[in-house]
């Protein structure tokens, strides 16, 4: 069996990881668990970006630059979101996101 690993393999892998992330984001009750799923989705997108950088623009590695920015955004998102989770925990003594409906009218 000889398989030449190419762009489509990376894209397929990325799609699978992204969908696992979507599943986790929808079904997790725990706020931190939801955040972890979102990080998985970020990573799936990053794999896509780097794969495109490798196979479509191998010399001008634009995709890698965007991936680097994605990592920075993910870090910023994680700090703020986790701080919010902590605040929710302090107020509700729990971080079950399904019960956080205070913003609902």
């Amino acid at each position, binding site marked *: 069996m000889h398989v030449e690993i190419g762009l489509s393999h990376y894209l397929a892998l990325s799609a699978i990881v992204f969908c696992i992330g979507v599943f986790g984001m929808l079904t997790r009750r725990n706020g931190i668990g939801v955040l972890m799923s979102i990080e998985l989705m970020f990573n799936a997108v990053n794999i896509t970006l780097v794969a495109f950088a490798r196979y479509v623009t191998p010399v001008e590695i634009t995709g890698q630059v965007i991936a*680097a920015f994605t*990592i*920075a955004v993910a*870090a*910023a998102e*994680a*700090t703020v979101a*986790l*701080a919010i989770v*902590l605040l929710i925990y302090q107020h509700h003594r729990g971080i079950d996101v399904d019960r956080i409906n205070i913003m609902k009218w």
Partner: protein
Amino acid sequence: MSEFAAIAVFLVLGVGFVLFNFLLSNLIRPKNPNPIKQSTYECGETPVGPAWIQFNVRFYIFCLIFVIFDVEIVFLFPWALVFQSLGLFAFVEMVIFVGILMFGLLYAWKKGLLRWY
């Protein structure tokens, strides 16, 4: 990319070495477990409640500042690699980049968040 094969080998063999040691030790060491020996060590007292207790937020505050500065470091490395060839302009860009982030540190400092107690 091929030079990273060494890293993979080192990771696998590192795990292998530890597991080998565990196995070797498993073959020659005594095994006499009893409930008191297996209880949680708390200087002889009986432990009260689980150890997974709630933590002080101070640890978290420092970790939070660390995350932001870690990202800064990762962006500083590519700059440090090329700024000589790009001259003064690149240097000024970095001064702005670092300067903006220093406001964050200054903010944390002024609000007393860098104090441990």
